[in-house]
């Protein structure tokens, strides 16, 4: 029996909180696509060590994998939006961390998994090691009537998308109808969320300008280790929680800094999300459970 997506939240095994206004950017789409949902995980930073921030750094990712596997209605696919591993200067260690990450997430029951790089994975070698494991760093695909575009704004250590990729993006978008439902996946925010904290993409405004003629665009990203929602015109941008440690809210402190582990509330501020593409689409946040 087909399961009504509206029943999904009741059925989901791990519970969660729904972002009330949903996917504003998709609200007006013509919805020719079949309803489905996907799961976004981000900023797992495999290889990070620091008990003050996460004494279970070696076990949080596995708990998230178990939580996704426990979803009673499995997603159509899963996406990791970058910083799969924590940075290291040692190319061998980088590859070891990428291999371990790949092995852990291979335990996901759903094998339709899309990967993106973060600056911790890719900026020190322009994405070379990351591509050995996961292939192209930017790409697009279609799923049940929704066009997904993964943008790489991390392989350049100066946080640029770059002229070549912007030209590819334009060519990709040229094939889409102006009312096509489009979901953009990226690591850094495309807009200037907090440039003084490195929470921006140098040429992100050019990508947004290319997307602006399209009426139904929503962006999901990571990097800032917390949920955040922002509009640039009619385009909604939603950042995801981390799976290693949260960072303080933009502008809330003089400098960017992590939020220390709270032993009274372990895993507080960590989690993943589901995104339902029905109208209105919904974002549901899930915690990491001990």
């Amino acid at each position, binding site marked *: 029996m087909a399961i009504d997506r509206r029943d999904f939240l009741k059925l989901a095994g791990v519970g969660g909180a729904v972002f009330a206004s949903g996917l504003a950017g998709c609200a007006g789409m013509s919805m020719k696509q079949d309803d489905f949902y996907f799961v976004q995980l981000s900023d797992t930073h495999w290889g990070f060590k620091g008990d003050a921030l996460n004494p279970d750094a070696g076990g949080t990712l596995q708990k998230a994998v178990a939580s996704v596997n426990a979803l009673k209605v499995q997603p159509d696919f899963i996406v990791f939006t970058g910083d799969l591993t924590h*940075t290291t200067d040692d190319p061998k260690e980088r590859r070891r961390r990428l291999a371990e990450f790949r092995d852990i997430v291979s335990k996901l029951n759903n094998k339709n998994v899309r990967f993106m790089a973060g600056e911790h994975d890719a900026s020190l070698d322009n994405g070379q090691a990351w591509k050995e494991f996961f292939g192209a760093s930017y790409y697009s695909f279609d799923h049940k009537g929704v066009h997904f575009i993964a943008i790489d704004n991390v392989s350049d*250590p*100066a946080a640029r998308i770059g002229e070549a990729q912007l030209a590819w993006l334009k060519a990709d978008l040229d094939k889409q109808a102006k009312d096509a439902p489009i979901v953009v996946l990226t690591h850094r925010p495309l807009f200037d969320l907090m440039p003084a*904290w*490195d929470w921006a993409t140098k040429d992100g405004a050019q990508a947004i300008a290319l997307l602006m003629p399209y009426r139904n665009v929503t962006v999901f990203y990571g990097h800032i280790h917390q949920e955040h929602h922002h509009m640039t015109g009619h385009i909604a941008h939603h950042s995801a929680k981390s799976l290693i440690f949260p960072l303080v809210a933009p502008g809330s402190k003089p*400098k960017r800094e992590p939020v220390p582990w709270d032993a009274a509330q372990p895993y507080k501020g960590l989690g993943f999300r589901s995104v339902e593409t029905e109208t209105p689409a919904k974002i549901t946040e899930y915690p990491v459970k001990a």
Partner: protein
Amino acid sequence: MKRRQLLIALAAGALFGPAARSQERVIRIVAKKFEFTPSEIRLEKGVPVMLELTTEDVAMGFFAPDFKADVEIVPGKVARVRLVPDKAGTFEFICDVFCGDGHEDMGGKIHVT
């Protein structure tokens, strides 16, 4: 253009053009993983300076968003960026080229009085 206007224009060029810029104070900053030396610089409001930046190891960036001063620092080359301190206070600058574990804490302060 009348002769008087021409003289005024030439004088203005001497005061504010390339010749004037060559007289600006130069501040040299050295970057290395994961610090700038000096990490604090003191400027006078309204007095532009030229920053000359070098790196001792990998590529770095210097970014002072409050003054829109942004330059990449490539090993073996001197990077120059003009900074116009048009407001008083203490402002942050950061490395905005990812350079490794410690990059996220790499920065300094600009004091303008």
